[in-house]
């Protein structure tokens, strides 16, 4: 258990650090890389929680697809690769205030609700269980999600293509 806690501490520290840099850096490309670190951290957390399948999906979809997609976006919109002076708008302080307020509200409620309850680790949940769940209870959303992805695909193409 100690090892897990140490791992969590490291991962969490990396994630928070990367996350903070993500929202403060003045370099767009670097921001994408910080995002990759956070997403990787999330995958690691999933593994800690015994959700292997989700963790790998996270790596594949997020790091493999989404981050790449975002990088493409950065390049297509000709954002400077290097440092850029002003990436923030003029409501930075408001934003910080709101964010801190949100954090405070969430943290206090969470602390109140679950205090020091522990996760009783039940072992790794196999992919099969997940798939049973998807194709059992959640079969309708699953099918609909496929239509959704199709729609997003077609729509994104229709919007983004030059004509």
């Amino acid at each position: 258990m100690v090892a897990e806690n140490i791992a969590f501490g490291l991962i969490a520290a990396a994630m928070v650090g990367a996350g903070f840099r993500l929202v403060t850096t003045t370099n767009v490309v670097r921001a994408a890389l910080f995002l990759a670190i956070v997403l990787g951290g999330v995958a690691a957390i999933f593994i800690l929680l015994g959700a292997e399948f989700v963790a790998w999906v996270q790596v594949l979809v997020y790091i493999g697809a989404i981050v790449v997609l975002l990088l493409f976006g950065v390049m297509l919109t000709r954002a400077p690769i290097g440092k850029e002076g002003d990436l923030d708008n003029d409501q930075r302080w408001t934003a910080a205030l709101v964010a801190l307020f949100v954090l405070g509200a969430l943290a206090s409620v969470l602390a109140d609700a679950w205090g020091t309850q522990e996760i009783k680790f039940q072992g790794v949940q196999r992919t099969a269980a997940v798939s049973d769940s998807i194709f059992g209870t959640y079969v309708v959303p699953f099918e609909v999600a496929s239509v959704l992805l199709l729609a997003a695909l077609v729509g994104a193409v229709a919007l983004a293509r030059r004509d």
Partner: protein
Amino acid sequence: MYLNQFLMLAAVLFAMGVYGVLARKNGVLVLMSVELMLNAVNINLVAFGAFNNTVAGQTFALFVIAIAAAEVGVGLAIILLIFRNRASVDIDEIDAMRG
């Protein structure tokens, strides 16, 4: 492991995401911040799944991941569209309609 250590991590990520979407003016950075928030949710879902010993949390997280991907795709398309028309992705300049 405490449940709350995951939840608190998620909360911090969520708050950073909130800051990011509010303070960043580059459209792509805003999208990244949104991802931060969605990942916070995913941590929550998986942690709760483990806590409650149900697979539904993971399933939920999978749906979120899939749909987040679709959202990012659409979002980028919109940002590209705007970039093509205005040669800028600064979203705080987009205020033609107001009042």
